[in-house]
């Protein structure tokens, strides 16, 4: 690929339980902030990409901030699976020369706006075979997977507790993070159940948040007063019999679409797990972090707890992630991935060349690698 996509701007509003504005408003502020960070203006924007679940469309957002003409727009589906695929879409537009400055954002009032599942009484499509039986919350769907993994791999609640505690420690260094109190294993183990075997601290936060990034071409970035972060490569994957959250109907229980993304990602990037200095694994629930280490090929199947304990694993979710920084459908993981390559994380890993960021692991999903240098 002769044209290379780079991230040149990012911005996030302070996370909160009640941001006090619409997702349209917070999204616009995040985008304007990211453009300013890049040294660009709305007049430069000619592409926009979003999650399908983003309530403000590209068209509406372009109207709100006054974009003259979008040469490229598009959206990616499947909830938290959409993060890396949305970044991939924006990158493709730049690589193909379809757009020069592409804005990507996610604004979500997931705290003040209430829980989306509460009003979901009419069960259509796949839901008609799940929701009437009580699989309503994302945690319910994840709990069934989690018990399979515990049974298959011998994972213990303490293994999940270690993930929650590690990410809390990262959040404590991050002034933007929502949850900065100490978390002990005793508190983890005695916290209330939500959907067994998942307890409160296995679940991500419920946050109002708004984040945006600006991508452009390597050439265009040369005119800007920023250090570009290269989109080294990306991949998407659905696996067979793809369902969102309730991946129960295929042949092998416990395997997720991430295991289909991984080989594509390593092929597309020309990298291998050993090359990755730091990871941001999608973490709506603690077990996804353990699963991601083996599905992306960092360790043998089911060995993540021992692999992490050995100290060999690249550090994960350095901002506190969805569990302790904020839950914005994984967009904060993407932003943290760029920060790690820029060298501006609050839990900065030394000399980062490559950061892997993944999206939701039990939905059709994707992953992306941000790098200091082009391939």
């Amino acid at each position: 690929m002769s044209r290379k996509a780079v991230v040149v701007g990012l911005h996030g509003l302070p996370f909160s339980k009640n941001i006090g504005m619409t997702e349209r408003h917070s999204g616009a502020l995040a985008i304007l902030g990211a453009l300013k960070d890049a040294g660009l203006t709305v007049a430069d924007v000619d592409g926009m990409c979003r999650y399908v679940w983003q309530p403000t469309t590209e068209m509406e957002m372009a109207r709100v901030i006054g974009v003259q003409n979008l040469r490229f727009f598009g959206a990616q589906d499947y909830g938290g699976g959409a993060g890396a695929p949305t970044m991939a879409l924006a990158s493709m537009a730049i690589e193909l020369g379809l757009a020069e400055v592409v804005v990507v954002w996610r604004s979500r009032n997931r705290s003040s706006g209430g829980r989306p599942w509460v009003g979901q009484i009419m069960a259509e499509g796949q839901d008609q075979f799940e929701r009437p039986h009580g699989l309503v919350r994302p945690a319910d769907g994840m709990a069934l997977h989690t018990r399979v993994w515990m049974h298959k791999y011998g994972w213990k609640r303490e293994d999940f507790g270690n993930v929650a505690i590690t990410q809390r420690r990262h959040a404590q260094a991050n002034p933007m993070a929502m949850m900065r109190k100490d978390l002990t294993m005793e508190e983890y183990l005695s916290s209330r159940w939500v959907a067994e075997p998942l307890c409160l601290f296995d679940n991500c936060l419920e946050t109002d948040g708004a984040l945006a990034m600006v991508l452009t071409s390597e050439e265009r970035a040369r005119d800007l007063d920023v250090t570009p972060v290269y989109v080294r490569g990306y991949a998407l994957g659905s696996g067979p019999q793809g369902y969102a959250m309730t991946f129960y109907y295929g042949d092998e229980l416990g395997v997720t679409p991430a295991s289909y993304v991984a080989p594509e990602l390593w092929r597309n990037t020309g990298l291998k797990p050993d090359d990755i200095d730091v990871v941001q694994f999608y973490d709506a629930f603690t077990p996804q972090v353990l699963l991601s280490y083996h599905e992306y090929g960092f360790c043998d199947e089911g060995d993540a707890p021992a692999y992490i304990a050995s100290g060999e694993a690249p550090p994960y979710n350095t901002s506190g992630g969805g569990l302790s920084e904020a839950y914005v459908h994984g967009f904060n993981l993407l932003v943290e991935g760029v920060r790690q390559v820029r060298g501006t994380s609050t839990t900065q890993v030394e000399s980062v060349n490559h950061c892997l960021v993944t999206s939701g692991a039990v939905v059709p999903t994707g992953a992306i690698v941000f790098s200091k240098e082009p391939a």
Partner: protein
Amino acid sequence: MSAAPPLPPRPVPDQDTLPFWDGVAERMLIVPRCASCGQWIWQPRPVCYRCRATNPVWTQVSGNGRVASWTVLHPPVLPVWADRLPLVVLLVELDEGIRMVGQLVDDEGTLLQTDGTAEGLAMGARVALRWRKEADITLPAWTLVGD
């Protein structure tokens, strides 16, 4: 006047799934099966995903199977279940090889208020089909049976 009881989630069948719900209304568990290659097709769809034949036949299954996984629900849940917690949602692998979701009930089909411990719920435990009523809705559900 007392407040209206909270609504349960309501299945909304379409043309591809209606026979399943018609079967449920008659307390028969029926599943599409490919007439060409014999593949069971769950969840229902109009094409066999193995051989692409477009003639699946709705076929009755026994409903016997094993526990492939489960969760125990705790608050916050939909109001309809709020005073019946904890309750168990099962992922059942039927003897035909397909997996279905349903709640853990007693021998009569009544939802059990339990975390499954007293009933000896375990991975691989044998279950049998029962029918559970939720307001005016009939739903397949499963009860634990000995091996």
